[in-house]
């Protein structure tokens, strides 16, 4: 039990669970914000995988950290844009449920 934190497989299993739970939520949720939350979970799973490989396998342990930092920046930009789109959608439809957004402009 004490060797769990120095074993690559532990991190891979946790990251796989994060990714799978996030994917389940992405299919299961019916509101836009719920889908956004699930997408954040998927991104976290991916960055955890990067960090694990970076710690145990990579010759240069800086690269994975830099990549994870950039994933964080992109995810913050994505969340800002997605949330403002959600607010704009709510102003037009008075709802953020995905099934209510069913008419196109025209």
């Amino acid at each position, binding site marked *: 039990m004490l060797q769990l934190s120095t074993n690559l497989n532990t991190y891979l299993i946790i990251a796989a669970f994060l990714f799978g739970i996030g*994917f389940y939520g992405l299919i299961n949720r019916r*509101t836009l914000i719920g889908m956004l939350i699930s997408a954040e979970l998927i991104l976290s799973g991916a960055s955890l995988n990067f960090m694990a490989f970076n710690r145990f396998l990579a010759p240069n*342990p800086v690269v994975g950290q*830099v990549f994870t930092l950039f994933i964080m920046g992109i995810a*913050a*930009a994505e969340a800002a*844009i997605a*949330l403002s789109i*959600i*607010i704009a959608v709510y102003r037009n439809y008075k709802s953020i449920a995905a099934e209510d957004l069913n008419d196109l402009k025209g």
Partner: protein
Amino acid sequence: MNQLLTAQGLGGVVFLTVSTAVVIGALIAVNSKRLIRAVTGLCLCLIGVAGLYYFLNSPFLALMEILIYVGAVGVSIAFAIMLADPHPEKKGNRATGLGSLFGFICGALLTWGLIKTGLSTHWQGAAAKINSGSMLELGKSLLTTYGMVFELISVVLLIAIIGSLALGKKGRSNHPGKISR
């Protein structure tokens, strides 16, 4: 019991705690009925991920995870819920029946496949590390080797800020009479 009181034993207990927080937080984030609880679950999960980063020899990334994800993203999602989801009890928030089952099967298959691939592959580690991966090395390579990407990320963030401001303003000016609250 004595083994638990050593530094290693306490580290193991902390590790188990943060990994449990990750999984339980993720389950709350996808399964809770109200969105605001889902955000709380997301924050719990991301704090756990920050703890895992700490165990992966990267305290800087752990701090950034808490600062950017739990701080900025979590708070802005919570604000968006307060602005856009004022009646959370009105209708079902999750798929039911067949859709839910389909989602569960997809997620379980993905998880199983990823775990099986990860455990059955023989990962070949590097023979030697060329630096220690400390915060000093990270800062050096962020400003030399990855300087261009660093600048591009800041441009992307600037455009995202301007874009979200423009989107918010546009939605407001289109229907000035409709917004009563």
